């Protein structure tokens, strides 16, 4: 039963004593023991501790309506939980024990959630397939010869395979939404600044956001409303009182834009059919569509692969071989840096650090980095213009169905292209939701994306709920 148990049903079930926290956590533990050696979603799994806490919650039953009482969650392994190993799937952090809780974790602890373990990711969240993890690959539970997407692949698989009721991921260019689409679940990247990143191992700070991966949009809303809000430890956060849209029928009056630049050659036939399926369904529900244009979309990938590595090269400078871990043999300080960083970072991390160092170096800074920031403004302005005409934008999440394990590992550029539809929302700081269309090809799901205005996370999630309830 845990496969189909949503957060919403769990909360109601606990409230009405239809089942105990212990019963549900035990079932999840059994599932992980049975199948996760093969699927590879978890990097750490704390069965005994989770069962003990579950039992305590049952014995000292203290349910309150606005809590997540006993809710078993999986957390991406780049988010700190105090006294737990946090590796970011990197050799350089393989023994790192977090000294404090991320703000999202403190908030979830306050809401009485339970953490089952930490999930696999591409090293430092750099990748689109979870194949860049230094420790293990993760398989797509719907077809185990295929990738689950990435970088939050472990979190998406944990939810899709019934090993956790919900999970947290992080999204810098699509790392929540793309794996959610590949695994047939829901992923939400909130407005930039809605959720604190304090305690998230930073990748590209002007783009990173934490968000939920869940079975339903309703669940994503429940988790998001618990983790959002201002935090003095993250200066980008703002006062956020999430206002749920109560009357989903009001959604029908919203106008949805279909940007022509997202319906291009290179989209696979299956994805096209999936998107048509979603649009037709919505038209039957009397949702109004409008053709719109986001003319600078084609430049988003270049802008992203300049700005993100620039920030990566700076953020990853702290992993110096002096702090966190010191493994390699060295004879002087210079060698300590070179060897620990050379051996500690995997290939993709090194590639991005070098690329970032290049675009920031004297002589290239203006041509690459400043130009990218200017075009980022143009992309932002495109959205501003379109949002004068429509309330939401509907697009594909990915150009193709999940690809085969190993298919793109030798071609970074091809791997990067799998994020072309998710990157623009990060560049513009907009809330974006990935949810299943309901259309499948050979058991593989097609997702679609809803993008909203900054701070209108409620309309994006409301629209998603409207779709899934019809």
């Amino acid at each position: 039963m845990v496969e189909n148990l949503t957060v919403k049903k769990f909360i109601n079930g606990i409230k009405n004593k239809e089942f105990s926290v212990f019963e549900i956590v035990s079932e999840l533990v059994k599932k992980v023991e049975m199948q996760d050696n093969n699927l590879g979603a978890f990097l750490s799994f704390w069965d005994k501790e989770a069962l003990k806490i579950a039992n305590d919650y049952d014995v000292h039953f203290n349910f309150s309506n606005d809590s997540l009482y006993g809710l078993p969650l999986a957390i991406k392994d780049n988010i700190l939980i105090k006294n737990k190993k946090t590796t970011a799937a990197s050799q350089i952090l393989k023994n790192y024990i977090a000294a404090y809780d991320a703000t999202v974790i403190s908030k979830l602890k306050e809401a009485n959630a339970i953490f089952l373990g930490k999930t696999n990711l591409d090293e430092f969240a750099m990748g689109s397939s979870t194949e860049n993890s230094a420790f293990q690959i993760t398989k797509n539970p719907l077809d185990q010869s295929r990738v689950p997407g990435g970088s939050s692949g472990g979190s998406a698989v944990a939810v899709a395979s019934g090993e956790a009721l919900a999970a947290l991921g992080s999204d810098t260019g699509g790392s929540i939404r793309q794996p959610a689409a590949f695994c047939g679940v829901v992923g939400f990247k909130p407005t930039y600044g809605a959720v604190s990143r304090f305690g998230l191992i930073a990748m590209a700070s002007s783009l990173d956001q934490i968000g939920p991966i869940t079975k339903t949009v309703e669940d994503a809303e429940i988790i998001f409303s618990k983790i959002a809000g201002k935090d003095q430890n993250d200066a980008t956060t703002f006062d956020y009182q999430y206002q749920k849209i109560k009357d989903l029928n009001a959604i029908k009056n919203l106008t949805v834009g279909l940007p022509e630049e997202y319906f291009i050659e290179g989209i696979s036939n299956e994805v096209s059919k999936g998107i048509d399926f979603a649009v037709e369904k919505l038209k039957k529900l009397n949702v109004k569509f409008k053709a719109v244009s986001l003319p600078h979309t084609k430049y988003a990938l270049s802008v992203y692969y300049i700005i993100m590595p620039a920030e990566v090269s700076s953020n990853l400078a702290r992993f110096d071989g002096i702090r966190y871990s010191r493994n390699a043999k060295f004879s002087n300080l210079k060698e300590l840096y070179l060897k620990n960083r050379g051996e500690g970072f995997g290939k993709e991390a090194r590639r991005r650090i070098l690329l970032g160092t290049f675009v920031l170096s004297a002589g290239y800074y203006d041509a690459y980095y400043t130009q990218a920031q200017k075009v980022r403004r143009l992309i932002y302005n495109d959205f501003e213009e379109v949002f004068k005409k429509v309330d939401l934008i509907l697009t594909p999440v990915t150009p193709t169905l999940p690809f085969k394990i190993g298919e793109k590992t030798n071609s970074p550029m091809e791997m990067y292209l799998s994020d072309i539809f998710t990157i623009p929302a990060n560049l513009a700081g907009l809330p974006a939701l990935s949810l299943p269309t309901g259309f499948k090809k050979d058991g593989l799901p097609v997702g679609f994306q809803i993008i909203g205005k900054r701070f209108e996370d409620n309309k994006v999630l409301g629209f998603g709920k409207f779709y899934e309830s019809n």
Partner: protein
Amino acid sequence: MLNKEDLEKLAALSQIELKAEEENSLLNDLKTILDHFEELKELKTENVPPLRGGTFNFNVLRKDEEGEALEKFIALQDFPLEKDGYLIIPNIFD
């Protein structure tokens, strides 16, 4: 165009030791990616102000109050080498 010498200079700036056998593939990857960036030159951007980050917040200040800091032994638990509360690092001067 980026050459091997440039790559080695970047590696030195980034404090990363590269393996000789991976230099060619890394160089090719970087060239392919930089080629892709050429498209940005098509755009006229003289009058476009750069978007320099994700947030529009400014002057974010907290109150000047005492707060709780991490306890010293917790903050040090992940430091690789330590003796009597002192952190051990390699010699800085040769």
